[in-house]
Structure formats: structure tokens, C-alpha cells
């Protein structure tokens, strides 16, 4: 994630008028941005404090943190070589929103467009890294028995890396296009890394 522009320190604070607005903003803007930032760093933990509340993000497990793209290479159209058939741990990729990784995994999906079905992926022609997209925009298709299903942006953002190639076999829920989100507003400070 070296292609991500580094931002440091604080961003201008906005005036939150109520808890509901604050929580909404937290979920929609700040969390995805913070997660992106945490992932782009080597930090184990990030904490944000503002007015009466604070948010702390911690990496789920060292294993998950070290293999963020493992889901992208799980399906192939060809039989795997025997050496690879023996392994099974790699197939339980951290897409599942289970256990301690839950908040992170859920928010994580907000910043990658995922496959709506099992099939062959094709990116949208002309769409390249750096393009600004809105939530709901079509970023590509998955061909299911000849029927195209849309891959849509889960949130506003900037197109980052493609995690699957044109013509690649993909499974349901697989991350296909990374989205970079603009940092939300609020005072951000980093705390000491734990991992």
C-alpha cells in the first residue's frame, strides 16, 4: 500500500451537533479512512479522540495483518499443484466477519469492491487507479454462466489497486478493487504500536 499518499497529524475539526450525526460520520467516513491508514502503516493500533468519544482500532491477528491479499489468490481455473493441495489454512481467509476481527473485517469490506458471485472477472474498461468514484458506481463485472453481474463501489473513494486480473476466476465475496478513501474529519493521533 505504498501508493497511498501519506498524511500525518490532524485534519480540521468539524462541528458535530449530536451523537447521531457523530456516529453516522464515524461509520461512513472516519472508520474506513482510519482502517486504510492503519493498514498502510506498520502500526498495531490507532486511536482517535474527539469531544466525549474515542475510537481505537487494533489489528485482528498478526496472521491476518500479514496476508491482507490472501483472498485474491484462492481460486484458480486449473487444478492446484500437489504441494499446494496439502495446505488448508490459507483458504480460510480473513473475509469472514467472525470473532475479535469483526469490526475491522466489516469496515474493511467497505473499502474494497467485492465479487457479487462466482465467475470470471472483467474490470470496467477505461477505469484506472486514481479515478474518483461514488458509492454504487460500477467498477467491473463478474460473468456468471454468460450473465454479467456488476461489481460496485461500496463507498465513495478513489480507485486503488485491482486485486484480480481480467478473466480471472473469482469467488463470492472476493475483494476485487481496492478503494482509497479520503480521511474523515477529526483529530487523529497515533499511539504506540503493539504488534
Amino acid at each position, binding site marked *: 500500500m505504498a501508493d497511498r499518499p501519506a498524511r500525518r497529524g490532524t485534519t480540521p475539526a468539524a462541528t458535530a451537533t449530536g451523537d447521531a450525526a457523530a456516529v453516522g460520520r464515524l461509520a461512513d467516513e472516519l472508520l474506513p479512512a482510519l482502517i486504510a491508514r492503519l493498514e498502510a502503516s506498520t502500526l498495531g493500533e490507532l486511536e482517535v479522540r474527539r469531544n466525549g468519544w474515542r475510537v481505537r482500532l487494533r489489528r485482528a491477528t498478526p496472521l491476518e495483518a500479514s496476508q491482507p491479499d490472501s483472498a485474491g489468490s*484462492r*481460486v*484458480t*481455473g*486449473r*487444478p*492446484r499443484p500437489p504441494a499446494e*493441495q496439502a495446505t*488448508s489454512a490459507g*483458504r*480460510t481467509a480473513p*473475509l*469472514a466477519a*467472525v470473532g475479535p476481527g469483526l469490526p475491522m473485517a466489516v469496515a474493511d469490506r467497505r473499502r474494497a469492491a467485492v465479487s457479487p*458471485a*462466482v*465467475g*470470471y472477472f472483467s474490470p470496467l474498461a477505461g477505469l484506472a487507479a486514481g479515478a474518483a468514484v461514488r458509492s454504487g458506481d460500477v467498477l467491473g463485472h463478474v460473468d*456468471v*454462466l454468460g*450473465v454479467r453481474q456488476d461489481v460496485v463501489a461500496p463507498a465513495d473513494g478513489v480507485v486503488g489497486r485491482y486485486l484480480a486480473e481480467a478473466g480471472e*476466476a*473469482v*469467488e*463470492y*465475496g*472476493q475483494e476485487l478493487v481496492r478503494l482509497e478513501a479520503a480521511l474523515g474529519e477529526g483529530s487523529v493521533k497515533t499511539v504506540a504500536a503493539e504488534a
Partner: protein
Amino acid sequence: MFERILIANRGEIAVRILRTCRRMGIGAVVAYSEADRDTRAVQLADEAICVGPAEAKRSYLSAPAILSAAIVTGCDAIHPGYGFLSEDDTFAEMTRAHGLTFIGPPAEVLERFASKAGTRHLLASHGLPTVPGSPEMLRDDADALAGAERIGYPVLIKPSAGGGGRGMRMVRSPRELEQVLTVCRSEAQAAFGDDSLYLEKWLEDTRHVEVQVIVDRYGHGVHVGERDCSVQRRHQKLVEESPSPALTPEASEDLCRAAVEAVVAAGYENVGTLEFLVDRSGAAYFIEINCRIQVEHPVTEMRSGLDFVAEQIRLAAGEPLGYSQADVVLRGHAVEFRINAEDVAHDFRPQAGEVQRYLAPGGPGVRMDSHLYPGYEVPPFYDSLLGKLVVWGPDRSSSLARARGVLDEMVLEGLITNLDFHRALLRNETFIEGAFTTNLLDRIGSAAFVSSAARPQAVG
């Protein structure tokens, strides 16, 4: 033979199919829903592919998702297991249209046996007895009385448009029949907008007996004996055994031979099961056919030494059966206990949660088919089957004695199961005598059954 099979199912049957693929040297890809990422079959598979969300309609029941998964993973056949798409003729046809093989009967065979009423007609024409009833809708009261006289009381009055037991009424005499006919008509009219009625013989205290058959596409077929599935609650089987304690060896032989002859004549193909109701007099009535592997197939595997998943695969690949009835040797007695995550004390409410401790029983004649492991989280989205304990013995009393021991030995903690129900059943006089009927549990109440059986055990 196939090179790579997509297993389009979950739980214990996915593991079961995978084991046979391994033995036959066939690659196995497991299709799974998001809720089944941590399931045993996914861990064991050569490759695993997520086909959809937890909701079965969008994963295990989605024909396009399953078929697409088979294609992108390079499979040449699909094993549907039981339930889900296993008897879906449209799916079987789609599979063939994409150049893959559906492991089960071909689409046209599934279609021929899809309708229950149609199948009863078809197999009756090939000599199988069906539940006696009026051949047409009742014209008037006189027609009804004549029909009931012919069938024999008690009879069941059934609305043509009804289903699931709604609007049915049982009568024991002509006088009773005359009294309720008008009421039944107006009730049927009000409930279904159709007042046509028909009659069926009321069978009291029946047992559920089914015959296992294997038929190839060249007209060779064998039966592999019967199974008795009379321990049920609300039509859910809990325990299955073979042979049936209700049939003499001669009656069993007659029933099984009639069953296989009828399905071969009717053009059935692959592994299948014919279900019968058996009344107190021992008369058997055909009710339906299951065109798939069944949950309780290990009972018959234990007696015959056959591998039914392997037979399904072989026959679907076009191989001939390769043996005859005389080669099928059934030995001893086998019984299967369905271990479910359900609360017997609270109306069999399904349970979900983490398996904290799990220790499968073992020893001679003991088989445990399960997908459990300690730490596995049972998801709330699917059926509650955790595994099947199958026990064999040279005769019924020895297999039940063996089952008593291993059920007591088995450890499964972390969520509520029906293990105590099975332990109680094995100490129940009616079951030990082999006199269970399908309505017994519903009549006496399962919770009462367990607690009454638990009491003497506690003091003894």
C-alpha cells in the same frame, strides 16, 4: 471416470462425499457459503470456493452459483449430496447443458419421478401397492359412501387443493362420513376456493420402512435391503435401523424384490430409496421415492459393505452395475442415531454455538460420520444435524447393547444436543421390543419420554 468433482453441499455429507473422492483418486472441490468458511469439508478439500452468502437460496440452492463454481474450478461433475439441489431436474439439465455430469439420476429420470402423485401411479402400474383411495374426486355423497365402503373404514377425507394436512378429517363409519361431508366441502371451499374432496385409507400406527435400490442405465438393478425409520417426531427421522424389526425375512425379501423390479421397469437410474408405510398387519404401501443419497445410507453400508457414494459416481459416469442380487450380502443389524443440535425439552428447538469438547466414540462395528471438531461454530442457518452415529452388531440386541455403551462414552459439549434422548431411547421398552410407530413420540411427548427414561437411570 471423473477427474474433479464439485461437492455442492455442507456439513457431514460434504465430508462423506469427500472421503469417497479421495479413495477413488478423484479431485474434490467444496462449494461453501460464507457461513461455512470454517467447516471441516472446506479444510479437507483440494480446493474450496465460496458460492454465496449464508442464505441457502443464494448459495447452496442457487443453480447458477453452483454451476459457475464447478466451471471456474475445472470440475467435470457435481455431487449435490442430499437436500438443496439433489433432486432438482432443472439443475441436472443445466449441468448437462454445460457439459458436466450431475451425480444422481439424469434430468429426465428426476422429472419422471418428480411428482408424488405421478410416481405413485407409475409404480402402482408396475406392481407396487399404494395407499388405497378414491381414484377420482368425489361426485356426491353416494359416491363417497360407495368409495369408503370399497376402501374400508376408517377413511381420511382430503381436500384436493389442500396440503400439509390442512382440512383433512378422519371418519370411522358411514354415519360419520355423511355427517361431515357437507362441512368438509364448505371448509375446503372457504380455505382453498375449491370444494372437491377425495378419500384415502386411514392407516393407524404405521411404521416407516424404506428400500434401498441401485440401478444402472442398462436396466440392471439390485436392492440392498430395507431400513426402518419409525422413530420420528413430526416426520423428522431420529433413528434408522436395518433390518426392520417389523418384517420377517420373507416379508422383507418380497417387499425389496417388488420395489427393485418396479423401479427398473419404470426406468429409474442411479441410487435411490422407495418409502413405504407398513401397517399393523404388515401390509406395505408405497408413498414416495427419494432420487438421491439419503442421510441414513450408512446403515445399509454397514450391512452390505457397499459405498453408496462410490456407486452413485460410478453409475453417473456410465459404468454398468457389475454385480447381481446374489452378490449383495446383508449381514447382521445396524442402527443409526442422528446427533442433532436441538433442545428436546423445548420442542426440539434448533441450537447454534461453539462445539467446546468433542470426542467421537469408537470400537468394533462403530462408525461416526460428522464434520465436527472442537472449536467449530455451528451456524444457525441450516439443519441441526451434527453427525450420525452408526453401530453394527451380528443381531439387533447386540448392536443395541453396543450402541448403549458408545452413546454413554461419547462427549459433545458446548451446545444442547439430543444425545440424552438417544440414551433414553436405548432404555425404552417399546424401542427395545422393536414396536415403535411413527406417531409414538408425538403422542407421548418427547420431553416426557426423556425425563421418564432418565429417572430410573438416575437412581439405578
